[in-house]
Structure formats: C-alpha cells, structure tokens
C-alpha cells in the first residue's frame, strides 16, 4: 500500500519559509493531544532529525508540532474527522490549508494555528 501524506499550511499568503507549510508521511504521526479548549496539537517524528540522533552538548530531539484551531471542546470529533480523512483513497491529504479559499478536513477546524519544525542540531 502506498504511503499517505498529511499536508498543513498556516499562511494565507506567502508560503516561502520553514513553518509556513509542511507535509509529513502518515507513518510519522506520533499522536494527538488537546492544547487548549480550542486547539488540538498533532505530533510527528522530527522531519530534520528523523531517527533522533544528536551528540552536541545540551541538544535535544523532539517531535514536530502542528496546532489546529478547532471548535471549542470538539477535540474528539476533530480527531475522528482526521482519521476518517486518512481512510480516503487520496495519498496527499489536506488536513488544514489556510490559503484562501481555505480547506480543512473537518468542519470543526477553522485554521492551522501554528507549525513548529524542530530545528536541525549541530
């Protein structure tokens, strides 16, 4: 079976920098957690430090994080909608795209609040 890929974009306009948009393989999805009453965070294996090796003093490797703005207290519903979208036949699945006209996999997602890609270590 082909790998599926999840797409996110948090910019309505220019899309030319790290953290403006991203695409992760589904196999990198490590989990989902509420971040507040109106946000849900989606975690992925680090894009830049995939297998987690680093040697510099005081360095860490953590996951990349995409935070979605959602309807208040609809975390489970949004998770369910994301999972349903992963069952589609598409290989590139837009979870959230803030480019106008916006596109979201769930009616309970209103925006991609932020994309945080763990920086490359030395």
């Amino acid at each position, binding site marked *: *079976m082909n790998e599926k890929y999840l797409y996110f974009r948090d910019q309505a306009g220019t899309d030319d920098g790290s953290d403006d948009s991203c695409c992760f393989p*589904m*196999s990198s*999805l*490590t*989990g*989902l*957690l*509420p*971040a*507040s*009453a109106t946000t849900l965070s989606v*975690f992925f*294996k*680090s894009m830049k430090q*995939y*297998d*987690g*090796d*680093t*040697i*510099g*003093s*005081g*360095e*860490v*490797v*953590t*996951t990349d*994080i995409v935070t979605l703005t959602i309807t*208040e*207290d609809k*975390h*489970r519903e949004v*998770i*369910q909608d994301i*999972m*349903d979208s*992963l*069952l589609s036949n598409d290989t590139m699945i837009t979870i959230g795209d803030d480019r106008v006209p916006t596109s979201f996999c769930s009616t309970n997602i209103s925006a991609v609040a932020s994309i945080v890609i763990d920086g490359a270590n030395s």
Partner: protein
Amino acid sequence: MNELYLYFRTVAAADDDALTGDSCCFPLSSFAGIEPTSAVTNTVGNAVTIYFKSIINYDGVDTDNTALHSDEVIVVLDSTATVKGFMEEFVEATNLAKAKPNKNFLVVADDSSSEYFSSLINNVNAITIQAILA
C-alpha cells in the same frame, strides 16, 4: 494496512477536555505494553497501565542524559475483571479493528461519553504525557 489509532479520555465532561492529559490519541504502532498497577487506589477493581512511545519526544534524545520515558494511560477495571482478561480483550479488539479495511480509529475508553471497547473497563484514571525535552 492502515494504522490503527487508539483514543482515551479521562475527563467526565467534554467541555473539560482542554489540556494535555485530558485526552489523547496514539497510533497502535506506539503501543509498548500493559502491566497491572497499584499506582491507583480505587474501590472498583484492578487497574492496568498501558504504555506508549512518547507522543511529544518519540525517538527523541537529550544529550544531557535526561531519561526518555513512555506515556502512560491508567485504566481502572470493573470489579470482576482480571488483568489478563483485559489484556486478552485489548489484543483481540485491536487485531479485529486492524483487520477491517475501513476502520482506523478505536475508542478504548472515553469517560465523557462512557464509551468503552470492553465491558471490563470502569474508567480512565489518568493520562500521563511526558513533557517535551529541553
């Protein structure tokens, strides 16, 4: 084959589902094991801790030698349930769900909707998500 995602929620009211530790969703591939636990005192029955690879740190590393622990979900079982019985139903349910082509989401335990994959479960006692390495 599709990944299967496991859902847990420990808050009784959906409008209290706002913080890390209130609910969580793990891929089954992050499942690391189950053991009986005495970490929770309850008057209901036995309890088990289900371990998963850390959502936030996953394969992470900290060169200051901070230990990287698993995330944990403590599930309290019904008064007549055994730990082995729960383990058997968990394995059976996840295998059955994975075998279905259009199923990738399994609610293991949701205290808000009182939805449990097994009648052996009474409630979710706690969800512990390891903090981000720094």
